């Protein structure tokens, strides 16, 4: 009745074939007919049919044999068998082999029409159900976690491998490479996906606060603790806890963390009651923990406890093939959100984007495109719309060095100097937290000469 579904009638009797074909055509179906099983299989090979109406008894390939072969090719195809004589054993065999139903000739028109309609409606619902499930999977994919480069394909494979296990995962990569997105991807593809993933940025919180954040606290545990509060480990029960910038936690917290990860038990700050929580641990770091272990800044036992399965997220400059895809993804995202008619990126701007080293990685690219969409006056993004081309090129030209560390050091120093070494403002511009900025200042030995 909808003119869309395709039906194949297979019957060796011409008058049966033709009358059914004609009868179904009036209902608006797209109907074809075959005089035997072999022809039907050839037709089935070339074209897709939603429903087959098959005579049980035919010379050559029988209706039951045709049913089996059709189901081997496409198990979703509906097959209704028709026979002149009702036979219980053959009906049972047909249904066991995947026939939707079994009718005897002559069949009541009302019965046949409703049987076909019901079968096709069920198939459509099943198809719709699958599509909806796929759409849900699509929706819960982390935002901007995209890439078609070999490196990203490898990452997707690793995520797929580890997601189904409960293994602790260590994600390594520079700032802005998307470590949290990898963690989310692991979580949403795991059996824990219906429980929360709780992210904690260990580098952004002081030791005392981190303890309270992770374990929670009882009322009155410390000044300002006016209410009892659940900690992140407790919130992550059934789900995943994502500990970002793990390298920045204090030795005391390292001991606490090791104990909690091993026992899955802890007490709230100021409390005695032991709390059990079933969580998976995913950690991320942008600095080599091995070096911190050698320097005695990170516990070796915790390192081995955490370094079970490692995923290294490559910096954007090592997967330049993904830059155009990401750039257009962000362009569409921001142009839609801001309702701006920006639709393309000029060749020169794209050349610049793909050649630039992106010390801030995907996050920096996202911000650059957002800014370009904001200030762009035309339908296309041009080099002049990009926020950093002058300063970035200057850094490269002045030094002739292209190492990330060198560029990062110079860029941080430039931002600090431009902002009179105001740490908060500089950290804000660099889009990193203050602790990370302090770490980087120490790492590169930067000093305020004024």
């Amino acid at each position, binding site marked *: 009745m909808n003119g869309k579904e395709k039906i194949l009638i297979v019957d060796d009797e011409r008058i049966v074939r033709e009358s059914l074909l004609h009868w179904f055509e009036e*209902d608006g179906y797209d109907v074809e007919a075959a005089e035997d099983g072999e022809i039907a299989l050839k037709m089935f090979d070339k074209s897709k049919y939603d429903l087959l109406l098959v005579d049980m008894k035919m010379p050559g390939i029988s209706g039951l044999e045709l049913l089996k072969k059709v189901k081997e090719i496409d198990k979703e195809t509906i097959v209704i068998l028709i026979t002149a004589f009702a036979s219980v054993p053959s009906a049972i065999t047909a249904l066991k082999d995947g026939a939707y139903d079994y009718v005897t000739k002559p069949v009541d028109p009302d019965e046949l029409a409703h049987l076909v309609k019901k079968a096709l409606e069920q198939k459509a619902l099943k198809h719709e159900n699958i599509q909806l499930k796929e759409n849900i999977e699509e929706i819960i994919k982390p935002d901007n976690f995209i890439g078609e480069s070999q490196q990203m394909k490898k990452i997707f494979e690793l995520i797929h491998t580890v997601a189904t296990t409960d293994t602790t995962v260590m994600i390594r990569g520079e700032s802005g490479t998307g470590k949290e997105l990898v963690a989310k991807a692991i979580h949403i593809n795991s059996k824990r996906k219906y429980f929360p993933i709780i992210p904690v940025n260990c580098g952004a919180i002081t030791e005392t606060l981190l303890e309270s954040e992770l374990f929670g606290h009882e009322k009155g545990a410390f000044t300002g603790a006016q209410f009892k509060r659940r900690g992140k480990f407790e919130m992550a029960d059934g789900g995943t806890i994502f500990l970002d910038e793990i390298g920045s936690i204090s030795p005391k917290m390292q001991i606490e963390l090791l104990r909690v990860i091993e026992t899955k038990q802890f007490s709230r700050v100021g409390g005695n009651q032991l709390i059990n929580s079933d969580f998976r641990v995913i950690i991320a770091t942008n600095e080599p923990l091995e070096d911190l272990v050698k320097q005695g800044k990170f516990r070796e036992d915790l390192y081995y406890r955490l370094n079970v399965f490692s995923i290294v997220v490559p910096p954007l400059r090592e997967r330049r093939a993904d830059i155009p895809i990401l750039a257009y993804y962000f362009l569409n995202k921001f142009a839609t959100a801001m309702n701006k008619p920006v639709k393309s990126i000029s060749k020169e701007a794209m050349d610049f984007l793909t050649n630039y080293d992106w010390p801030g990685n995907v996050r920096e690219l996202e911000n650059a495109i957002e800014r370009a969409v904001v200030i762009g006056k035309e339908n296309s993004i041009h080099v002049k719309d990009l926020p950093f081309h002058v300063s970035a090129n200057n850094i490269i030209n002045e030094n002739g060095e292209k190492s990330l560390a060198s560029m990062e050091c110079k860029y941080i120093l430039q931002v600090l100097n431009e902002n009179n070494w105001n740490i908060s403002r500089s950290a804000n511009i660099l889009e990193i937290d203050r602790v990370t900025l302090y770490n980087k200042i120490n790492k590169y030995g930067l000093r305020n000469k004024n």
Partner: protein
Amino acid sequence: MDINVIPIHLSNSGLLDDILFELSQRFNSRVNLIELDVNIESAFSIERKQFFSTQLLSNAIILSDNINGKILLLTEFDLYVPALTFVFGEAQLNGKHSIVSLCRLHEEFYSGRSDHNLLLERALKEILHEIGHNFGLKHCLNWDCVMHASLSIEEVDIKGNQYCKTCVASIEGYKIF
């Protein structure tokens, strides 16, 4: 375009007159009654004691293909197509010939009670339906439309007795009520 009605084994002349009158009220075209000696034996199934509608149509086509306009066979015979227990009628999609059986439109067939007006209403619905197929229409989803599929007598009674606004556009010479 004329509408030509050919009765086959139809003894109820009063009903035939009423049908011809109603059709002439609904169509701008001329409605003619034509006598034709259609071969019925070859369409009869001894086993089923029914007439194969496609065969009856084929037999009529041989005799009436030169007649202008639509040709409607009207019969009291119980019609069937192989694989189905019965059909109320059959038509050439985008063609000129159609056939309607009154056999299962009689209320007597179901309740033993005779009802001339009900029979006339059912017959007109099925005639308009088959003529609709002649004009290329397929089954309509609108229950108020006469082109809605009717696979049982209940469905014949439920559906409307006119073409819907969409379907009527395809019917040449139909007076919109």
